[in-house]
């Protein structure tokens, strides 16, 4: 990439990212440093002076390390098995293995409780008595639950990386006498390192900043819960913003350290894998042996989803001290899907998420190009910046976007124009801000996927295209994007699914029922006293089914193409 082109893309990316992310973030976080018009570091110092916050950061770090370790041990073998073998059930489980990441908000916690609660399914099924799974072993509970929800991220990235490996490399290794685990460790592992790094960093930073699971497990002494508690505290308190800054800085440091240790070891290949020559077809017992880990992992990871599903068909109060609901009904679905807010919220969610993914593709690929294909000294800065949205609590970003919308909403030219109000004022129409919020918060998935793809693709292929007279645009369209398609599909699936399930921004920015996305409608139904959780679970099941059909359907419709992308065909 020419330096001038790199500088142009770098500048545009920085300006866009700055306007969409850093400005709203800065507006909110400045509250931790500018108090009553005066700059102060008092609150930042407070984070380090009070030992419970240092312990909170340390505990979050432990959670991230534990989760990433388990995720690696779950996802890498599964991805490797999926890449290397052809076996009955592979197509189904290649789709199902991704479903754990689409647990809908609010009712997801109910699903956990129905399964692992004192009168839940596990205790009832094995007649264990009221064992308090959720009240004890809080750290291990958090790590296990997070790992079961996050391994699809690692799985997708590693699978894409394995699919990109040229089989000739491993064949060459075997010809030279390198077999078995040694071959995996010396050849496969370094070649798939970009995918492993992408999945690892996403998992690590996600679990470092994850709020929902520690709240479910009542594990309160960790940084995200401490930020949440301080943000929700009545009255004004500058402290949580200082704590967010420390969390952000810690995430950056951890990311930089990870990159230093792992991220630098990327080996591009002259050619990408174009055949499935490495796949071994399995039958009989060997088929079962390979299928078994998929069944076990998916089965355990989907327990909360079953909890939500069974809650959705249960009569209120009829699933208690029993393995299954004692009385079932479809009324919850009738009430949820027939509710006045539901149809518009589905339409809205599809619109917001699709637009956000489009923004993600453009911005993500552009950032990845600068990071991987340029020699700018500052490219690492852009790489690090693009990861920041993972580390910022959703509530903080939502407050930032609201402040910006309030600012625009009070400008004379906006007040006088219905058109500008519908663009810039969340009260009139929050579409722009919701799309921005979704896109920014999901950008890291696309950037990491695209970076991993580009790292595995030799630049000489693009140079050859240029030598043959193709323009940069033609090279991008005809050479580069097809070569990194698997990685982009992985990024799109993650970004779209997580956008459909986005909570914090949706709750605050979508203020009127006409603009509610599906997550806010789930929240609204959940608030109905008595029957709320059953009705919300029904809508949550709809969302899960929709996303599952999207993911599995995409894999089936793309057929061989998808198979080639991920080696699942």
């Amino acid at each position, binding site marked *: 990439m020419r330096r001038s082109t790199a500088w142009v893309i770098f500048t545009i990316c920085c300006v866009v990212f700055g306007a969409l992310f850093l400005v709203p973030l800065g507006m909110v976080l400045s509250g931790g440093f*500018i108090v*009553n*018009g*005066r700059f102060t570091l*008092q609150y930042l110092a*407070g984070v380090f002076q*009070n*030992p*419970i916050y240092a312990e909170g950061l340390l505990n979050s770090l432990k959670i991230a390390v534990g989760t990433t370790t388990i995720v690696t041990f779950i996802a890498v073998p599964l991805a490797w098995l999926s890449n290397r073998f052809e076996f009955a059930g592979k197509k189904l489980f290649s789709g199902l293995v991704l479903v754990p990441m689409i647990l809908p908000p609010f009712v997801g916690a109910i699903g956990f*409780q*129905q399964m692992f*609660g*004192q*009168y839940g399914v596990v205790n009832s099924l094995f007649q264990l*008595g*009221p064992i*308090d799974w*959720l*009240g*004890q072993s809080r750290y291990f509970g958090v790590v296990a639950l997070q790992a079961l929800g996050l391994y699809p991220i690692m799985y997708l990235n590693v699978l894409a990386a394995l699919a990109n490996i040229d089989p000739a490399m491993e064949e060459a290794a075997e010809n030279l006498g390198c077999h078995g685990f040694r071959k995996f460790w010396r050849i496969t592992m370094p070649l798939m390192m970009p995918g492993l790094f992408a999945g690892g960093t996403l998992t690590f930073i996600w679990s470092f900043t994850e709020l929902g699971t520690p709240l479910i497990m*009542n594990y*309160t002494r960790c940084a995200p819960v401490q930020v949440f*508690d301080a943000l*929700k505290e*009545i009255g*004004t308190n500058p*402290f949580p913003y200082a704590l967010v800054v420390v969390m952000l800085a810690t995430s950056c440091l951890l990311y930089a350290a990870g990159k230093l240790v792992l991220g630098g070891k990327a080996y591009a290949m002259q050619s990408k894998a174009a055949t499935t020559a490495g796949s071994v077809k399995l039958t009989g017992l060997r088929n079962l042996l390979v299928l078994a880990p998929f069944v076990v992992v998916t089965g355990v990871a989907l327990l909360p989803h079953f909890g939500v599903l069974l809650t959705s068909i249960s009569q*209120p*109060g*009829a699933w*208690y*001290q029993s393995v299954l609901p004692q*009385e079932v009904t479809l009324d919850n679905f*009738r009430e949820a*899907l*027939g509710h*006045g807010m539901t149809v518009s919220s589905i339409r809205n969610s599809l619109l917001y998420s699709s637009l956000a993914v489009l923004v993600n593709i453009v911005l993500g690929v552009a950032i990845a190009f600068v990071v991987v294909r340029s020699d700018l000294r500052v490219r690492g800065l852009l790489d690090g910046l693009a990861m920041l949205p993972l580390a910022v609590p959703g509530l903080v970003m939502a*407050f930032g976007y*609201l*402040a910006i919308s*309030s600012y625009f909403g*009070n400008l004379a030219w906006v007040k006088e124009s219905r058109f500008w109000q519908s663009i810039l004022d969340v*009260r009139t129409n929050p579409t722009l801000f919701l799309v921005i919020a979704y896109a920014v918060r999901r950008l890291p998935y696309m950037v990491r996927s695209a970076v991993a793809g580009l790292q595995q693709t030799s630049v000489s292929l693009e140079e050859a295209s240029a030598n043959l007279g193709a323009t940069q645009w033609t090279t991008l369209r005809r050479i580069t994007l097809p070569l990194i398609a698997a990685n982009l599909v992985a990024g799109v699936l993650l970004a779209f699914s997580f956008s459909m399930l986005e909570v914090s921004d949706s*709750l605050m920015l979508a203020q*009127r*029922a006409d603009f509610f996305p599906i997550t806010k409608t789930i929240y*609204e139904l959940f*608030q*109905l*006293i*008595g029957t*709320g959780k059953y009705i919300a679970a029904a809508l949550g099941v*709809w969302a899960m089914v*929709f996303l599952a*059909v*999207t993911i599995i*359907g995409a894999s*089936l*419709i793309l*057929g061989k193409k998808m198979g080639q992308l991920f080696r699942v065909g």
Partner: protein
Amino acid sequence: MFRNLSVLLVAAVVVALPFLLRPPAQTEQGRAADPVLSIISPHNEAIRFEFGSAFSAWHRQHHGSPVKIDWLNVGGTTEISRYLASEYVAAMRAWWRAQGNPWPAGAADELMATTPGKFADLHAAFRAVDDPAKVTARIDLFFGGGEYDHTRAFQQGMTVPPWPAGQGPAEFHYPARISGELWRSATMFGTTVSTFGICYNRDRLRDLGVSTPPTSWADLTDPIYFGQVGVADPTKSGSIAKAFEMIIHQQCHEAVRAAGFADAQVEEWERAGKDFPPAYEAAIAQGWLNGLRLVQLIGANARYFTDSASKVPIDVSTGDAAVGLAIDFYARFQAQASKDAAGNERMVYVTPVGGSSVSCDPISLMRGAPNREVAVRFIEFCLSEQGQRLWVYRPGTPGGPRKYALRRLPIREDFYQATEEHLPFVADPIQDPTVNPYSLAQGFVYRSRWTSRLFNAQRDLVRAMCLDSADELRDAWRAIIEHGGPSKNPGAMAALQKMPDRPAPLAWGTVRDIMRKHDRLTYMRQWTDGFRDNYRQAQQLAEAAR
């Protein structure tokens, strides 16, 4: 091909289902010229639906046109407070600058401060303007939340009186204050009331071996409930903080009575407001400490402190917590929704008589309300008998809600004086003294000097004592329970219940001084450190006593 078509068909069915099940529009279809009322509210969909449709019908009947309610929903009261502040700051900044005035650094903080500071002119100018053409959040009403949030919104200048002084309704039919709770002020008007009590799961109690269900706050300190008490978080809700204040207040009453002071004598001293006998002050101080220690032991038994008002009763109804501190209507509703097949309630709710305040859910008019006239009518509707019925009547009854039972208690006293008229239609037994808020409030005499000045201190103390030190508190309490319980571990209990010495010895008489002399970061850190040290010492003492 067939596979692709099947996938598309499944996807089409999934997407089409909600469209097929969509009901015809249930709300009254209005015209473009009909008035629009913008209401910000944490109330749930059921309340919004019932009040929206009933008011629109009422307005059409009395004023000739239906009203479209533009409900704004930005989350809970914390989010609403921040959102409103952000909207008013942006509006005021635009208007202030348009007048040619500078907007200095710190102006936003000053605007929302409850007292004027160095930009007193700005502070006063904001509170003097009530014109939607100048400064407005484009919202007419703030409906729901707690008295704390509405009073604070008023102190921040965001709400205004609906009626000029002396021109409001002749009769509100309910008192402005009751049992220490503010129900009505010049800008804020309670529309419904609720109490705070205990809910418990009968099966879990039986499993735990509890023979007598809990009926008082002190019952929740029993070690048998270790890890089984669901608690609403007083640091995140003014209403819950008020409920905790009442727990402490009740202990003050008991200590004063135990010290031999008669109610009449206490009444006389408090009315005079000076020359309090040292022994009387010492009794209050002891009661206050007892109250804190009671809260501390409830915290030691706590499974969690949650900001979600509905979580505790849901968890208790499913057996995921054995007992919980919950708001009455959530608990009653949940108890009914979780009955077994034979119709028996698995969960029971009790209000500790004399131990709970009765708080209100108010409504306030916003500064610069775009549709002030209709907004005031909405307030009048909420306070009318017709509006009051919506809270407690069963769906489909004459004057009742159309679709949802709201199961909240009306605020008007005359509603409870005419119970025969309402009994055939109400969802809850309003004549029952354990339900009737006026009966419950009578059991509680509130002395504001005892605890109301310490409202913020008590909130911070609960945070330092039970939330920020939760792990150490739980470990110490577990060690005490495992080594014979409180009675066998007096040394450990003394360490556990010791109050911090820094930044100054903590007591009823010193806490306000501590808060005045030290910034919040400092005293919170030192309190947390102090409690953690005490808890660790208690754990060591209990474990050493084996």
